[in-house]
Structure formats: C-alpha cells, structure tokens
C-alpha cells in the first residue's frame, strides 16, 4: 500500500511510524522545514517538504498512484480542501480526514471524503462505554447508511430477560447480532434467552433506535 500523509505533527508522525513498521510505503508532506528535518532524522527519507493543499505538491508526492491520502493537519479547512483535490484531481481511491471540530463531520461526508476521525467523538464514545448507564450506547454507524450498531447492557429489571429472542417485540429492521455473557461472545438464535448482565450488540436503523431503547430499558 502507498499512503500519503498530509501533516507531520504528532498524529502524522506516529501514524507514519506504525505504517513503516508494517512494511507499507509512506510519504509525509510537511510544510515546516525544521519539523520535516526532524521526521527525516527519525524515520528516514519519507518526507516531502511542501504544502499539501497545493496540487503541485500532491503531484510531486505521487498522488496519482497513492492508495490512500490521509489528512491529519490541525486545520479542518486544509484537510477538507486537500482531500478534495486528491480525490478530484488525482483520483485517489480512499481519502481519510482528521476532523478537529466535530460539527464539521457532516460537511466532510457530504463532500465525498471517505472516512473521518474525530478525537472528540472517539473520547466521547469511549467515555460512554465506561459509564454504566441504562441506555443504548451507539458504537458506530455503517458508512453512508442509517444503520447503527448499538450496545445495551441488560439489567435484572428489564422486560427483555427471561423470554426467548424470537418472542421479543423487536422493532422492524433490528436484529440482535452478538451477546457477550461472562466475557465470552456468542451469536444468539431465536431460542436464546437474555439474562441480566448480558451485553447485547444490535443492528438497527436510526429511526427505530427509540423503540429499541424503550424495549430494553423499560422496567417490567
């Protein structure tokens, strides 16, 4: 795989180091010459000094044959613009952006950026997984769909316990995919009966999420 990483800050640097260790071909584009020199000293000849949002720099970096361009600068506008240039001008198949302001996620998706990573959102979802709560925890949304993967921890008062899954009043287009019980995961079938303490991983459409929540978290 050939990956171009735009931005040689901490994220770009460590990302590049990992990829190099895995044997991938990597090029970091870094604007600041001191930083570029530092990276070259640490990682070898894998740095291009320049402005990644200039088409000429991307051309020099070989964007046309890159499998992926990753934009990890600290400025959302730079990440957004350079990935659009990579995609439209050089036909980069996969574009991945770091997003700094979570409110920009929509726009990136709308403009065709293939994947986004947003530290605030990641922190938040980890925190939500840490905090025990009587609620559905959104784990992820399948890209370009309205399908959500959610998690629920069943407690003893929940009305979903004690009856086989096939008799549960699940909302339409919702399915219980995996159950984690006593730290081991298994795929349930219609006869499986939920027990208190079970972690349930379910797929559902966003519109049905409230019904799923109501089913799992309404007390008997």
């Amino acid at each position: 795989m050939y990956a171009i990483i735009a931005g040689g800050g901490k994220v770009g640097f460590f990302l590049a180091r990992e990829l190099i260790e895995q044997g991938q071909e990597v090029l970091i584009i870094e604007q600041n010459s001191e930083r570029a020199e530092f990276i070259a000293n640490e990682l070898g000849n894998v740095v291009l000094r320049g402005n990644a949002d200039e088409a000429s720099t991307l051309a020099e970096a070989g964007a046309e044959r890159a499998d992926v361009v990753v934009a990890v600068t600290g400025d959302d506008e730079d990440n957004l613009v350079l990935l659009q240039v990579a995609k439209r001008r050089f036909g980069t198949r996969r574009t991945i952006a770091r997003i700094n302001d979570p409110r920009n996620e929509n726009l990136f998706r709308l403009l065709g950026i293939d994947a986004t990573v947003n530290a605030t959102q990641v922190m938040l979802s980890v925190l939500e997984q840490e905090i025990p709560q009587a609620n559905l925890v959104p784990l992820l949304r399948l890209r370009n769909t309205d399908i959500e993967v959610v998690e629920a921890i069943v407690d003893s008062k929940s009305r979903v316990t004690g009856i086989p899954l096939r008799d549960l009043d699940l909302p339409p287009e919702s399915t219980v995919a995996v159950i984690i019980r006593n730290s081991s995961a298994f795929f349930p079938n219609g006869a499986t009966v939920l027990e208190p303490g079970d972690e349930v991983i379910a797929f559902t459409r966003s519109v049905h999420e409230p019904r799923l929540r109501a089913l799992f978290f309404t007390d008997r």
Partner: protein
Amino acid sequence: MLTHAGHEVTVMDLKSSAFGRLGPDFKGTTILGNGIDQEVLKRAGIERADAFVAATQGDNRNIMASQVAKHIFGVKRVVTRIYDPLRSDTFAALGLQAISPTIIGANSFYEELTGEPAPAVPV
C-alpha cells in the same frame, strides 16, 4: 458597493479592527467570528441569505466556508476568492463560482504589455 445599491449586507471577520475600514457610513451589520463556523454563520443570518461571498486571505478557508454555505445552508449564489489558480480550477470544476485575482491580475498585465487579449493557459 452592495449597501450603496440597496442590498442588506453582513460582514464577518475574525478581527474587529477589520471593520474599521468599512468607515462610519457603512449601513450593514458586522459579526465577529470565524466564517467556517456553522454557528457563527447562523448568527449572521445565513439561513435567509440570498448570496454568500468568501474573500478572506486563506484559499482553503474560503473554499470551506463556501461549501458550508452552499451544501449545508443551501445558499443560492456563492462566490469564492481563490488565489491559487490550480485550486481555483479544481473547485470551479466542483461547482464553486471561483474568482482568482491571480489570474485576473496576470491577464490585465498581459493585455497592458502586449495590447492583445490574454490567452487561456491550462493550469
């Protein structure tokens, strides 16, 4: 020019000092804030705006602000200043109404120097 022509205008800038240059007779509104921030744009009334112009010093900031105006808020007329001709070319292809002062300036110089219309040069 727009206020003189009777249009309602709101100017946004990161620095309040920038508004000083509008002069005491400026009839429009001024909003302090970042033009790529959707909240700030809403405060400036973008939801009822007929047109949006992005003319900061930063090409990328202008492009992103324009794309927010166009794609998030559905503003009908969006005009973007893009200095870099290559970027201007790319985003014109993506549907932005881009004005590149660099190209306009170069064309004017060419015409003054040669007395002939500037040729279209592929970027």
